[in-house]
């Protein structure tokens, strides 16, 4: 179990790395003089490539972040293990849901 979680976290990290670099670059490029919705939407709407790109980003983040947080909470708080697991699974769900919703919204 620990091994699978470890693998999942590192593999998603490896996927996230290039995605995040592109995302950051893009943000910096796009942010010039303030964002407008139309700008964003123009870029993303109807573009299946971007949709897939951000979906992958969201899915990976929704796997990666809860596993990371699970360690943090286990180590820095005295919360019982069971609760921690439940909490981070919830967090993963929330991230996934909101994230995909956002992607759908801009698609």
């Amino acid at each position: 179990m620990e091994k699978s979680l470890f693998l999942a976290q590192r593999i998603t990290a490896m996927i996230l790395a290039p995605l995040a670099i592109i995302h950051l670059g893009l943000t910096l490029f796009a942010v010039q003089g303030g964002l407008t919705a139309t700008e964003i939407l123009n870029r993303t709407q109807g573009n299946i490539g971007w949709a897939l790109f951000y979906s992958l980003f969201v899915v990976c983040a929704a796997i990666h972040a809860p596993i990371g947080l699970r360690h943090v909470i286990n180590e820095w708080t005295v919360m019982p293990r069971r609760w921690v697991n439940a909490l981070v699974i919830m967090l993963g769900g929330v991230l996934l849901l909101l994230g995909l919703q956002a992607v759908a919204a801009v698609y």
Partner: protein
Amino acid sequence: MAALAHRLSGVLLALFLPFHFLLLGSALEGADELDRYLRFADSPLVKIAEWGLVSLLCIHLLLGIRVLCLELTHWPHRSEKLRSWILPSVIASMLVGLLFLVRAF
């Protein structure tokens, strides 16, 4: 030190990401809505928050790559060599964050 910065940035990212998504998700309500938010986002406060998010992502990214190198590559004595990664990472993130701010205004 590096681990602490990485950890804090990771945790903060995880906490702020839902709001970021929420923001984008409001595009569902239509472009107008989003525009209103983005106008609201013009306010310095939100700019700073977004700036935070960008810097955090950047630093977490760079330090994360450092951890991946530490663990998954195989060069001897890499831990010492990668110690020098820390400061440049922080500076780079600051620069990226700064760039973001400059461009945003």
